[in-house]
């Protein structure tokens, strides 16, 4: 027995030695020394792009390197995912420049998990021209911009024009009320056999879309910010939204047979013509076109019907952030890249035309409307610069573009956003998969759970 204990002790010492060595290795890591010569930065490129899109990106990289001879750009495939981002952040495997959603900006800044590039951003000529509501997502408490807004979206109702026509609906006159959405969904399901209205339910997207529907019906999921944030999940608008889903699913049978969609799989099925309508970011078109090969002529999008007092459309977007591990020289190069690749095409005619020309030549979508990150005038000016290269069917976007500037945009819940959405996923799933789901009981449980999340945050 003593011998066994001794062996165990030796083994433990061995383990501790190895652990100690590793810990020592980890803790001895010093910040990278300031490079004196050329600097190399690693920048994110969307995963799963078609060869033409990759070629267009690489051409932009070459242009940038020509303009900045001291900066070398390496690319790394990266698409933000809620389930892998934290591990990539902790593991230090993110590129130097990477996109993050608005929902993560404030928390990452507070925890100093991304680089403070506010001084560098402040030197950019348009630093004070961002739409204040949008810039807020990437600002610290003092207003310094740590993460640069590069795109914004308002939620939209995407629809398949071909299925509309097959169902005897007018694709140029899409639903303007939720009752019309329900009626159109039933017509599509009856006439085409495809899902009239589909709903995301997985990987936090069920909560995201339920929050969107709640906003559109005048409700809120969370009221207040910071320590005063209060869960208001069991509000009338959310109940109304869930009751509508319940009726469409179990009375009308107009929601198809798949109820475990996330953003990626619902886009796939929509592009494949299996879905008549679904709610998602209004700027989904590039993904549908470049990653899911959707026929542009089949695509249509409109604004969400807003009903009730204080109704609005949920807005979000993407920020460009810089790794906290980047040295000062790399941070400076990273901000130059953000300016060149993401922003200049919105503010500078020459850059806008150059980017549009490459995109059009490589058969990438040009001119797909999106919510402006500056103001409406800047947005319209940029659209006019690139009008010769526009290759998306703008008329299919008209139901959206004619109304989107008139709709109030409401930001996502400010605290524990993804956790709140995750807590709502099972609620949506229950309503869509259980005929006897008790909406009030589900929301009461979610209310308790989300309040707990807010209290802990």
């Amino acid at each position: 027995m003593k011998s066994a204990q001794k062996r165990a002790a030796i083994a433990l010492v061995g383990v501790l030695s190895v652990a100690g060595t590793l810990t020592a290795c980890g803790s001895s890591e010093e910040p990278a020394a300031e490079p004196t010569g050329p600097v190399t930065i690693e920048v994110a490129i969307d995963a799963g792009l078609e060869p033409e899109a990759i070629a267009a990106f690489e051409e932009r990289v070459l242009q940038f390197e020509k303009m900045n001879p001291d900066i070398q750009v390496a690319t790394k495939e990266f698409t933000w995912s809620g389930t892998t981002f934290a591990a990539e952040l902790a593991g230090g495997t993110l590129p130097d420049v990477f996109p993050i959603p608005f929902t993560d900006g404030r928390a990452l800044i507070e925890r100093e998990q991304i680089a403070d590039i506010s001084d560098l951003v402040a030197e950019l000529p348009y630093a004070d021209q961002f739409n204040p509501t949008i810039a807020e997502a990437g600002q610290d408490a003092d207003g310094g911009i740590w993460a640069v807004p590069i795109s914004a979206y308002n939620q939209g109702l995407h629809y398949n024009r071909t299925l509309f026509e097959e169902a005897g609906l007018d694709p140029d006159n899409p639903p303007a009320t939720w009752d019309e959405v329900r009626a159109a969904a039933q017509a599509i399901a009856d006439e085409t056999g495809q899902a009239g209205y589909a709903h995301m339910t997985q990987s936090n997207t069920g909560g995201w879309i339920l929050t969107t529907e709640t906003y559109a019906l005048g409700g809120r999921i969370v009221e207040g910010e910071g320590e005063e944030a209060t869960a208001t999940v069991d509000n009338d608008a959310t109940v109304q939204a869930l009751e509508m889903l319940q009726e469409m699913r179990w009375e009308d049978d107009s929601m198809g047979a798949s109820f475990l969609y996330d953003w990626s799989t619902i886009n796939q099925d929509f592009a494949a013509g299996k879905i008549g309508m679904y709610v998602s970011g209004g700027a989904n078109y590039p993904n549908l076109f470049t990653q899911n090969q959707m026929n542009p002529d089949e695509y249509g999008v409109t604004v969400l019907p807003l009903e009730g007092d204080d109704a609005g459309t949920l807005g979000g977007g993407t920020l460009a952030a810089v790794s906290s591990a980047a040295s000062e020289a790399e941070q400076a190069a990273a901000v130059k890249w953000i300016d060149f690749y993401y922003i200049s095409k919105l503010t500078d005619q020459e850059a806008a035309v150059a980017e549009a020309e490459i995109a059009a030549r490589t058969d990438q979508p040009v001119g797909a409307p999106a919510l402006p990150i500056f103001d409406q005038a800047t947005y319209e000016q940029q659209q006019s610069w690139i009008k010769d290269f526009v290759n998306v069917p703008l008329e299919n976007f008209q139901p959206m573009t004619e109304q989107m500037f008139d709709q109030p945009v409401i930001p996502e819940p400010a605290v524990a956003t993804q956790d709140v959405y995750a807590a709502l996923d099972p609620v949506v799933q229950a309503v869509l998969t259980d005929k006897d789901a008790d909406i009030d009981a589900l929301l009461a449980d979610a209310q308790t759970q989300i309040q707990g999340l807010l209290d802990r945050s």
Partner: protein
Amino acid sequence: MTTISSPLRATAPAPPPPSPPRPHHSRRRTPRQWLRDGGLSTLIIACPMILVFGVFSWFPIGRALVMSVQETNLVTAPAFVGLDNFVFVLQDPLLGKAVTNTLWFALLALVFGYPLPLAAAVLMSEVRRMRGLFSALAYLPVVVPPVVAVLLWKFFYDPSDTGVFNTIAGWVGLGPYPWLQDATSAMPSLVLEATWAAAGGTVIIYLAALVGVRTELYEAAEVDGAGVWRKIWHVTLPQLRGVLFITLILQVIGTAQVFLEPFLFTGGGPNNATLTVLMLIYDYAFGSSLGGNYGAATALSLMLAGVLAVLSAVYFRVTRPWSS
């Protein structure tokens, strides 16, 4: 039994003479003695293995122990929180659901997945021709990468009436069934795929064990008038009991850690119907893009490991009398 063993004993060669007594070593050896006895070469040979195990197994376990009493996002400095993470996990209303689901999966896998490979192995061992082909066919699902297998079965489980399984069910006037899209049928659907994917490996183990069963025992049973079922019950199963006990505990441990199927098929849905303990651990750690609750994740991991360790110890103690 004795009718067989007696003549064997009569013809068996004489047993080898007993080996000479080993020289007595004192309990405490000097370093010189240790070196002279080949201790250094033993250590050198063992070193790579110790290093690999240390880095990839023991160090993460050690880190998990530490993290379970910390609040950390792995970037900023961690804070010591005592047993708060364990309390948080035990108070989480989803824990009960996850444990129940895991037990349900384990039970279904045990009822359907455990006897199936044994039955297949026994049948295959009786086949005189093309046994190799049957073995290869049984093992084929194990060769298919798990993610590919799940994607394939996801295709089979398509809930529309044009899905593969629903089309087959439609031929006999059944369905369409929602399979993964319904809280009641989701878990059995996962078990079906998991059984298909894992049975081949167990079949091969049983087939190998069956080769070791002495044919004289079957001959003796036949002489005693035993039919097929009595031979299986009185000869095959008792001879395989050691292997059966091992595969049973391995299956219990495996099913308690089920993750791949619920993660890839359903993400734990619908309405948490396939949320397992490992899925909950994953959700704690990676459910939020802002760092997750690594402390709770490691706390629940340690609790699961503890439960499985106790279960294994009890199991081996209880089954020891029957294992040999």
